[in-house]
């Protein structure tokens, strides 16, 4: 079907409007972060800062330990994503390839857990962690997510299409079961595993809810919490500082998105 020129131009116009609706807020965040407090007070909606002032960024780094929070956040997100994959592989293998009594039950548990979000479990889990003095530790942030129902399910689905002969051949060669799972099958599932890792990393890097309810002090505070605190601290809201914090928080995921856009988009699109 050939499109008429007028229709094509109209699509271009609408697409530009869509781009503006999503990019102008980002631009506004960056613009605000380079302003000074007097500028914002004098004219809060001035479209451009008078000159690029890095004061807000210096203030962010002076108010919260950005490097430490960022380190905690990245460590947590990587630990969760790595554990999820490490555990999902053998579990998915057992569910996809091995014959044993109780398999339907085990698969049922995994499927049921797909329906339960952390928001429905945090009250009992918090009480458990409070009793065992685990609140405010990395364990409280990582352990509840170390196993992923979704990850196990997706690995199982991917392994279903791997022919049994490959596993039988590996067994003939004398490979142990764990060697088969991690050395033979894992490389074959690379696209699935990369998507899983990225989606999990981004989700937990961004997560605000769980670190908020599982921490009461500074010891394992994550960056999203630290940035949200920028708004609550001090007298009067200093939006240029909050927006600078926002830029610092968003840049790593936006950079990752730019680098791995295909994987992230496919992970979301393919799940349907």
């Amino acid at each position, binding site marked *: 079907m050939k499109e008429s020129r007028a229709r094509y131009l109209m699509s271009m116009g609408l697409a530009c409007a869509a781009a503006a609706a999503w990019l102008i807020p980002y631009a506004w965040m960056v613009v605000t972060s380079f302003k000074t407090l007097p500028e914002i007070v004098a004219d809060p909606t001035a479209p451009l800062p008078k000159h690029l002032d890095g004061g807000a960024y210096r203030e962010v780094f002076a108010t919260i330990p950005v490097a430490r929070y960022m380190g905690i956040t990245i460590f947590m997100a990587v630990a969760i994503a790595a554990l999820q994959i490490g555990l999902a592989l053998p579990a998915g293998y057992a569910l996809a390839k091995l014959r*044993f009594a109780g398999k339907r039950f085990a698969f049922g548990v995994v499927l049921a857990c797909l329906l339960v979000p952390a928001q429905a479990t945090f009250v009992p889990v918090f009480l458990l962690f409070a009793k065992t003095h685990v609140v405010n530790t990395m364990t409280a942030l990582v352990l509840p997510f170390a196993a992923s129902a979704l990850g196990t399910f997706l690995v199982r689905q991917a392994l279903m299409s791997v022919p049994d002969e490959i596993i039988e051949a590996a067994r003939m060669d004398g490979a142990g079961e764990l060697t088969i799972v991690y050395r033979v099958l894992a490389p074959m599932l690379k696209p699935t595993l990369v998507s899983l890792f990225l989606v999990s990393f981004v989700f937990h890097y961004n997560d605000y*809810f769980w670190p908020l309810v599982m921490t009461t002090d500074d010891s394992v505070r994550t960056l999203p919490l630290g940035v*949200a605190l920028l708004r609550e601290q001090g007298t009067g809201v200093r939006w240029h500082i909050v927006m600078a914090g926002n830029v610092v928080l968003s840049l790593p995921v936006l950079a990752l998105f730019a680098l791995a856009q295909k994987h992230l988009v496919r992970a979301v699109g393919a799940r349907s």
Partner: protein
Amino acid sequence: MNPRARWHPWAMLGPTLALLVTFFVLPIGVAAVGSLYSWDLLTPPRFVGTGNYRALAAHGELLHVGLRTLGYSALVVTGTMTIGLGLALLLDRPGRFFGFVRASVFSAYVVSWVAVALLWMWMLDGNSGVVGKLLRVLGAPAVSLLGDPGWALPALAIVGVWKLTGYSMIVFLAGLQGVPRALLEAAALDGAGAWNRFRHVTMPLLAPTAAFVATTSLVTSFQAFDVVRIMTQGGPARATELFVYAIYEQIFLDLSVGKASALTVAFFVLLLAVAGLQLRVWRARGEAR
């Protein structure tokens, strides 16, 4: 295939099952038991039977929290689906420019809720926000959207739509790949205009995708917490107190473990209802394939 040893499957599943049961299955049971007690974390728990549920129902709190959550979800789901479908149809074209626009819209889905909530809070700020300024220039009455009990919830929903539209757009784009070009071309040859092609070819083929987006977005919006905690803390006048925030408030601000547990159980029942709906939709979709 047979396992090499009978214990192998359970050893491989063990860690996963143990963690899932500990952190996702048992907590629901613990909450159900805890909801029958009155406990402030300091003095010993006291058995009150259905007292917590009755107290929550008596003040209409449970009903209001439920309705508010449904209202927010309805706005977010209809908003993201309409705009997401529109953008998918608009941007399903080759070329770098359209790819760039797709990435721009989707990027909001990747960025933290914290960043999105803080950014929109600044833009919606009553005195110095750009949105207010824009509205004043257009001659609309000056209201502080987040400070107005009638506007606060729709304002949060707008933020939710901005954040989540990229998700529905991507899923709709994936669905559009399943609409055969040949079918659309045949319809065009038969003289069907753009609207009729959409109405009679694309839309029926996209119905299963739409059902998928609807149910997953519904579950996501039920869990909304970050926007509330950061932008309004449930206010003004409780207008934005959604389910998860209500649970959070009960345990961390009111130190009422029993009521928090009762709300958790109610929240879980609501999620089960959505899951039932989801299952029916997915089954229908499986049959349609």
